[in-house]
């Protein structure tokens, strides 16, 4: 292992932590991982995937990051194996953009091992596509974020980075930081919510979605 290379445990720690730089460095290492890249090239050939391996890797990293931060990936499986399994699902199902899909777990995380992946029939996730209305909702929400002042966008970036890290909050680590970031972000959050409330096209979503990850 090169001197500046993180171990799997260190990657996990960085991804679960509240330091954006360390978080970024960990994702970068996964992105550059020769093992992951070689596996993906092989899978792209095997399953005659129609886009290139790098596209699927980027989508896989985004989905892994979401799952990590909302506590759905707990580190019971090796992180590179988990990432490869996410990518394999995308390749097998010819998914080209991660923006329009949600992954639902079909097996326990601890069951996702290299030997599990050796069987090409095994699929650890079920892929559900977001409906047109939800895709439209996301597009509008992206537009609203873009309407905020640049400073607000920066503050909120840090706030959501921290607040959406539920694993970290659940572990009762860094709660003080979360509170501090939240205080700083309150004004900007209010601005964003006001924009949401005054966007007619979002009215249909003002019904609370119980038991859902927003």
């Amino acid at each position, binding site marked *: 292992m090169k001197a500046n290379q993180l171990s799997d445990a260190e990657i996990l720690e960085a991804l679960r932590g509240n330091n954006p730089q360390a978080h970024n460095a960990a994702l970068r290492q996964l992105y550059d991982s020769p093992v992951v890249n070689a596996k993906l090239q092989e899978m792209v050939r095997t399953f005659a995937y129609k886009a290139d391996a790098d596209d699927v890797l980027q989508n896989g990293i985004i989905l892994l990051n979401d799952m990590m931060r909302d506590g759905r990936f707990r580190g019971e499986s090796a992180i590179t194996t988990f990432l490869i399994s996410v990518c394999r699902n995308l390749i097998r199902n010819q998914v080209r953009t991660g923006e329009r899909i949600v992954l639902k777990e079909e097996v326990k995380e601890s069951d996702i091992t290299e030997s599990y992946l050796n069987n090409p029939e095994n699929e650890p996730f079920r892929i559900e596509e977001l409906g047109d209305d939800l895709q439209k909702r996301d597009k509008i929400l992206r537009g609203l974020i873009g309407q905020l002042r640049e400073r607000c966008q920066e503050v909120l970036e840090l706030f959501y980075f921290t607040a959406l890290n539920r694993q970290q909050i659940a572990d009762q680590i860094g709660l003080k930081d979360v509170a501090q970031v939240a205080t700083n972000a309150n004004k900007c959050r209010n601005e964003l919510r006001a924009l949401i409330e005054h966007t007619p096209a979002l009215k249909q979503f*003002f019904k609370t979605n119980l038991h859902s990850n927003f």
Partner: protein
Amino acid sequence: MENLFDNIDDYVLDLLNESDKQAFEKGMAANPDLAAAVAVHQLEFRAGQLAMRDNLRTQMATWRVEKQARKTVEAIETVEVTTVSPLTVVGKEAKIVPMRRRIFQYASAAVILLAVGFAARWAMQPQGLSGIDMAQQFYEEPNFGARSAADTSLIAAAERLVEQQKDYKGAMQLLQNIKEATLVERTLSLKAHCAYKLGDFATALTTLQTLIDTTNDPLSKQPAEWRWLLMKLAANQRDADFKTRLEKIENDEQHQYQNEAKRLKKVL
């Protein structure tokens, strides 16, 4: 639980214990204002999640370009090693095979020139980013949607050629023969895609401009405007027209590629 409104974040982020969660949901059932506030918070956190994703995508766009640069350098180094190695051997045997030595010397010089050329090209590009790489990063493969197997029209055949065989030249030939006015937009769109894949950015640009001028349907016009920008990038034509259109898309809240334009601007 005291004031349920204070716990909206915790509820939305699923941080409440089971009994507090049940109490909160009872409160929502009884108080429509609380329920409405929760819905707005859910949308707010979704917006935050999307913003984080977009930031990460922008980051990865830069990583991708760096990765491709590393691959290019590695390829050059590999060529140098394989060329230099036989040169050394032949050098020792120069008296026996002087012609081969000369060939290897020429080959070696060519490799060095090639490397210098690559390095110069790389150094001259702003921030080391190549327009083609960036265009590739942002380019979306067309989604042809569901098509009936019984559809034997030329346009369907051309789409099949592209989708299943990546035969862009073959598809271009078929597209030349499509004259139906109702298929103009679909034909131009596919033609531009094929031209891009064949590296003919000039044709892609003119085709997309025709499409932009032809249609008023935002579902066709906006993707064409975005792809036009990417073709300008690929052709290394970051001129005034490019900047004007990039700013127009970036500032147009109704434009479906507004966020992509913002991300592109960040990378640029």
